[in-house]
């Protein structure tokens, strides 16, 4: 069973000629088939964790380890991590002018699967996934994320999740900026992937709203660059009632 293990992860960024530590010792284990919700206030370092796992060059790992089934993830380049089975649905997906969604998806699937998918089954696969996510077929001919609405960008991320079937899916605030209908559609997409039992999910969110659609096995409160408390789904109910104040006031946050 695939397992992502994060041990004592410290991460810093360079900003204004100074080094700023953002992650201050994160410990977390995510197994295939499990869903972990990571909840925390703005600026607590959730995206930093997500980007660091995917290998964004802006973030420097100063200490700690990340392994996927014992393999050192931190040694891998960004594309190697993706091919090893780590997927990041981004909070702010990037526009790539002049590159069509269909070309992008096929190039990506070819890289991840190690061979070009058979054209006939591929076209059908994409079409069906798009239908389930309520995406118009004309979407495939548009340029990646160019002129997409917030909701379209998030659907496009989940479309990739469904097509690439990663071992570990990191969803960074996939819920933010979505109306209720879009939230439901996107959540259903995530749940289809979860139901396969092959994917471990790290669901990063600011709000408890999405947890009505996607039921986590574990909930972690993220504050001040580390996990401040872990528990079961009941922890989300507590956050819903009390907010993050207890964690940010207690001195765990900056």
């Amino acid at each position, binding site marked *: 069973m695939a397992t992502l293990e994060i041990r004592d992860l410290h991460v810093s960024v360079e900003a204004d000629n100074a080094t700023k530590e953002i992650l201050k010792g994160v410990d977390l284990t995510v197994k295939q088939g499990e869903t972990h919700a990571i909840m925390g206030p703005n600026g607590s370092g959730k995206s930093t964790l997500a980007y660091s796992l*995917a*290998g*964004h*060059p802006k973030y420097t790992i100063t200490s700690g380890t990340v392994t996927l089934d014992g393999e050192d993830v931190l040694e891998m*380049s*960004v*594309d190697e*991590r*993706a*091919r090893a089975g780590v*997927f*990041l649905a*981004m909070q702010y*997906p*990037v*526009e*790539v*002018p*002049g*590159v069509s969604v269909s*070309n*992008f998806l096929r*190039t*990506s699937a070819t*890289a*991840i699967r190690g061979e070009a998918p058979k054209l006939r089954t591929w076209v059908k696969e994409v079409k069906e996934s798009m239908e389930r996510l309520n995406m118009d077929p004309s979407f495939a001919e548009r*340029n*990646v994320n160019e002129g997409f609405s917030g909701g379209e960008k998030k659907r496009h991320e989940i479309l*990739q999740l469904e097509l*690439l079937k990663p071992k570990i899916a990191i969803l960074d605030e996939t819920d933010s900026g979505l109306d209720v209908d879009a939230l439901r559609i996107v959540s259903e997409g995530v749940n289809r992937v979860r139901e396969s039992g092959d994917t471990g999910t790290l669901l990063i969110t600011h709000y408890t709203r999405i947890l009505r659609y996607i039921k986590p096995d574990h909930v972690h409160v993220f504050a001040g660059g580390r996990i401040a408390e872990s528990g079961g789904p009941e922890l989300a109910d507590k956050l819903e009632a009390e907010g993050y104040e207890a964690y940010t006031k207690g001195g765990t946050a900056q």
Partner: protein
Amino acid sequence: MAEASIPVGSTTAGSIAVAAESTVATRMSAPPSFDVADFPVPHGREEEWRFTPLERLRGLHDGTAIAVRDGVRVEVEAPEGVTVETVGAGDARLGKAGTPVDRVAAQAYSAVEKASVITVPKETVLTEPIRISVQGTGETAYGHQVIELGAFAEAVVVIDHTGTGVLAANVDYLIGDGAKLTVVSIQDWDEKAVHVGQHNALVGRDASFKSVIVTFGGDLVRLHPRVTYAATGGEAQLFGLYFTDRAQHHEHRLLVDHNKPHNTSNVAYKGALQGEAAHAVWIGDVLIRAAAEGTDTYELNRNLVLTDGARVDSVPNLEIETGEIAGAGHASATGRFDDEQLFYLMARGIPAAEARRLVVRGFFAELVQQIGVPDVQERLIDKIEAELEASL
């Protein structure tokens, strides 16, 4: 593209001058003339020469570049119905579309003994392109070509420059009323070639002119595509792509002279640069004269800088002498390769080299699609891939 991150040393200036003194005219150190003696030998500080390394012009600018007979081989492949003539320097059609604006163009005009004139008779609609191959033989040459379309004729012309040598040439396009001309000029020179050219288009009433300039090769290429209108209802599209490598100098200086009312122009040039001392210069002058009410114009230049050490000078310049226009705008942006795009693609398993290819292809894609000549489009994409291959 991260438009804010202008590479060190690059400039993107830009101005819209309304009813001011014409900087287009004052920018030139002498008025247009067919006589080389009317232009002083440039010293390099003149506005029109300040970006050009004169020492690499191999004497084209100071009278020391002496042409040899057949210094370039020109072959014309024309479909039936097209007339191809070789004429003497005195032929009345030479220089009808425009007058040399700098010393090199005047030198070429003064030095040529023979010119080619290609005529597409009125109402003749070609289904195959006219292909002109200009092949350098390592020598110095001056050239002049005229392409004339009669009323309502339609043609596509592909001019392909290969080989090496030193060439200064004038090309005239005379586009009759209601005619449609597409010209693709490909500068696919070997690395030592020097090519300076002035292209003059005279757009007839309700005529369309599309110019596509594609510059890859050469040590130094400096082209002046220029458009004026004979009447109203004309349309000019000026597209350009360049891929400027280590130590190459590619300079494109455009002028659209809206001298008559109710004409349109659309200019879009895109360039990628890589390698130490790669230098691209883009000057986009659009002049809307007092008489040119109803003008609609837009010009754009975008540059993608792939490595350190490359430099871009991009100067759009729009001068408006009448308030009665339909639209006028300009944009210029020079950006580095966008690391966020690269990260996004790589985060989907795509290896770095392939991700870079996708981004650069994407950068040029929209422009390539507008060329409308399939074999040229394919060759261009292959060429872009080969350029990238060489850098990775």
